[in-house]
């Protein structure tokens, strides 16, 4: 029995189909290209609904050479990023602030 079938069985029982997102901590490697510290453990405030939580608890939609990070409460975009040939374009406008341990 394959792992994918296991996932399918778990999904059948769970009910909801795979929502297609991962935890924000899956973005840690990508973000390490830009930030000197780990921002997935940082707290942030959603600029749309005001929810405050760690970035790791946000919903990451991996998108090929980039990502979209959405608030787990309101679903709006917290951040998006695109990795290009020799640069990364990063939009953090959905985060009102980030509090990072140093």
């Amino acid at each position, binding site marked *: 029995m394959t792992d994918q079938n296991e*996932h*399918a069985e778990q999904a059948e029982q769970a009910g909801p189909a*795979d929502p297609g997102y991962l*935890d924000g901590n*899956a973005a*840690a*490697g990508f973000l390490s290209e830009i930030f000197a510290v780990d921002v997935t453990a940082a707290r942030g405030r959603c600029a749309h609904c005001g929810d405050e939580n760690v970035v790791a608890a946000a919903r990451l939609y991996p998108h090929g050479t980039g990502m979209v990070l959405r608030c787990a409460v309101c679903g709006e975009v917290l951040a998006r990023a695109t990795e290009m040939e020799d640069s990364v374009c990063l939009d953090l406008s959905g985060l009102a602030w980030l509090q990072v341990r140093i």
Partner: protein
Amino acid sequence: MSTVWRVADVVDVRAETPSARTIRLRIPGLHGHLAGQHVDVRLTAPDGYQAVRSYSIASATGANGVAEDELELTVEELPDGEMSPYLVHGLMVGGQLEVRGPVGGWFVWRPTDTGPVQLIAGGSGVVPLMSMARAHAASGSAAPFRLLYSVRTPESGFYRDELEHLSRDAAAPLAVDYVYTRTAPAGAVTPPGRLTAEALSAAVVPAAESPTFYLCGATPFVETVSGWLVDAGHAPERIRTERYGGIGGAS
């Protein structure tokens, strides 16, 4: 230009199950890592084609002879996988791949954390939790640890012997409970079947003890179990999750 990728040498490989393998990597410049972290692995084909996937670290520095500049990954082959068939069957000792990380500062356990811990693994989600169990034992931590491990069959579980051994370590207590979803061991009292909310409640550290939960597995499993935990009265901020994607996720 990216400077975070490092070349890793494959120094050991060993089978965990017929479809899963543990790979020990040496990464010059690595000075240990936290239990629960992951790395991104990049493979480049001769024509320049590249693929990147994330894998959780299974090892803990100092446990099982893993040196400070080494770490182990346990990779399960997915039938349609882009990288996993190569990592499980093609990669050889002496081979090289590129690694970014270790990264991840949230889904981690530190020996300085003294509170009770409940680990919940769905299938291959046991990998980062094993890193925590190994770090727990290697540090002689007295923090109470429980692992609830959902597997299809007794043969499909990883690290069975080592988990058995760790569960008998008096200095660093680890209690292991298995849920067999497809085939139970001979003589088992309960028939095989999926984890239920009731069985979960019976097996995990009670809410009154304020455990920290580390929950890892396929996304539907994580979604369902974390929902049950919240319904049972556990504080959402004490539940840390690592989703592995689910059906439709490519690897």
